């Protein structure tokens, strides 16, 4: 249990997807104009993360790792399919995003309308693929660890986009120099927020 809490806190604050690794920047910068839409996107990312990371964990464990296929037949024990991880992970993510989209549309049209274009966009969000690749690289031991890591990374991303959206709403009427308006100031803001998030760098739980 302690281990799981540790992974969660780490992935939310210390290894924050945006401020520590600068992953998923495209939608982070593009959709962070208002708190409302960025909340929607953030929740969608949490949702997708929490499903794709464990699924990819299973893929990794039972298909891709060296000798992972030996559950099919002992003669496969020497096979190493890890060179396929990129294509497998992204295929899983894309199909799961599609699936999630269909399910949400069927059972909760209001949420579907609220998320709009963001749901399909998530398929190409690098934070999601990054989550799966980090999961592979850090060799999480159990399915629970992978799930908690997915949840934590999603929550960290959510926090980042919602907080920058609030700041961008606040500075909407500031007298910012013309060349910096819009994306320029968003980049500077992200850098400064990165400095603020250095707070957590090095914390060991």
């Amino acid at each position, binding site marked *: 249990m302690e281990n799981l809490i540790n992974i969660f806190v780490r992935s939310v604050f210390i290894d924050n997807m945006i401020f520590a690794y600068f992953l998923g920047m495209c939608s982070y910068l593009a959709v962070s104009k208002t708190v409302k839409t960025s909340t929607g996107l953030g929740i969608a990312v949490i949702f997708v993360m929490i499903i794709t990371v464990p699924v990819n964990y299973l893929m990794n464990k039972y298909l891709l790792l060296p000798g992972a296929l030996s559950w099919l037949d002992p003669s496969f024990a020497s096979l190493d399919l890890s060179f396929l991880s990129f294509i497998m992970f992204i295929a899983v993510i894309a199909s799961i995003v599609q699936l999630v989209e269909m399910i949400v549309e069927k059972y909760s049209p209001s949420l579907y309308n609220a998320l709009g274009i963001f749901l399909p966009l998530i398929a190409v969000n690098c934070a999601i693929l990054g989550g799966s690749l980090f999961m592979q690289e850090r060799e999480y031991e159990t399915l629970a660890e992978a799930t908690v890591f997915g949840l934590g990374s999603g929550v960290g991303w959510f926090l980042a986009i919602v907080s920058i959206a609030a700041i961008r709403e606040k500075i909407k009427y500031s007298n910012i120099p013309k060349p910096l308006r819009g994306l320029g100031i968003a980049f500077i803001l992200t850098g*400064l927020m990165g400095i*603020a998030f250095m707070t957590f760098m090095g914390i060991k739980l």
Partner: protein
Amino acid sequence: MKALRRYLDKIKPNFQKGGKLGMFHSTFDAFETFLFVPDKVTTKGSHIRDSIDMKRTMTVVIMALMPAMLFGMWNVGYQHSLMIGESWTLWQNFFYGFLKVLPIIIVSYGVGLGIEFAFAQARGHDVNEGFLVSGMLIPLIMPVNVPLWMVAIATAFAVIIGKEVFGGTGMNVFNPALLARAFLFFAYPSHMSGDKVWVAGLTSGDKVVDGFSGATPLADAAAYHMDKLPSTYDMFMGFIPGSIGETSTLAILIGAIILVVTGIGSWKIMLSTVIGGLSAGYLFNIFGVNPYMEIPAWHHLIMGGFAFGAVFMATDPVTAAQTERGKWIYGFLVGFFALLVRVLNPAYPEGMMLAILLMNAFAPLIDHYVVQANISKRLKRAKKVAKL
């Protein structure tokens, strides 16, 4: 005074639109309003009239900073005299510190105001007074041994990237003084932390008495040298090494009283920061895994920059939360995170700076949720009334 006024009136036409030096209008205006209360008044639309404008506000904050600054100067000399093992008189201590601190203040003001004036000229707006306070805060949160060129770079970074790109005073998201310090902290860590930087002359090879370490109480505590911690009285009065203005809790309290009485600093933020710090401290006391967690919670309030940050940094009206309920949440989290970093993060001995910067990033979000909560509460009430 009259002669000065007459002189200003005489040269004023030169600086007005169309005058010979019209392009320097904002520079002239800045000096004129600094010297005399401007005669411009609102003629319509405004319902609150107050003699206090931004310049006076900033001046009050500077006055509140004076005790901490004067004590800081004295303490620089005192620590140095301890280091070389001589006992100096009060004036010797003060004069030594004065000579050490004054250059830092001059560089900070010179660079910062230079950039402010340049931006004001280039962008055609009036010079704002915001830097008066930042320029005083920057020297007070530096270690006394910091090289002057670093102060210059950090000030330039803070004013340009922290403030001017957001549109100048009142628009910044992060506290400029803290950004300056954070910039140096991450760019030149060896000059901003460790045991050598806090006492003047310790790095330059002056003779040092045996047993003098120059470590701050925070560094001692982080290394679990609990027996080396100075007495509570010393820490409260400020006879300890540390950044120039942060050591004396007493001097800072005097400043806090000035700020609260004049209504310029928010007592809600100060109080909630202290509450946040205390609750984190008591939480650590309950766990008590290592010696650092076992020190009394209130000890944290008088060590390091906690008091200075709570009184002068967290209360910055621009970067703090703006809503009244938001201020409580904001302050509480500042205090809480500051202690969290101090005790749990081995990389940094002090957490106040980073905790405030972090909460600066989240303050707009806190405000947003407070406002939204209020809106939905009122909507609910309106619906209830409509139903009746």
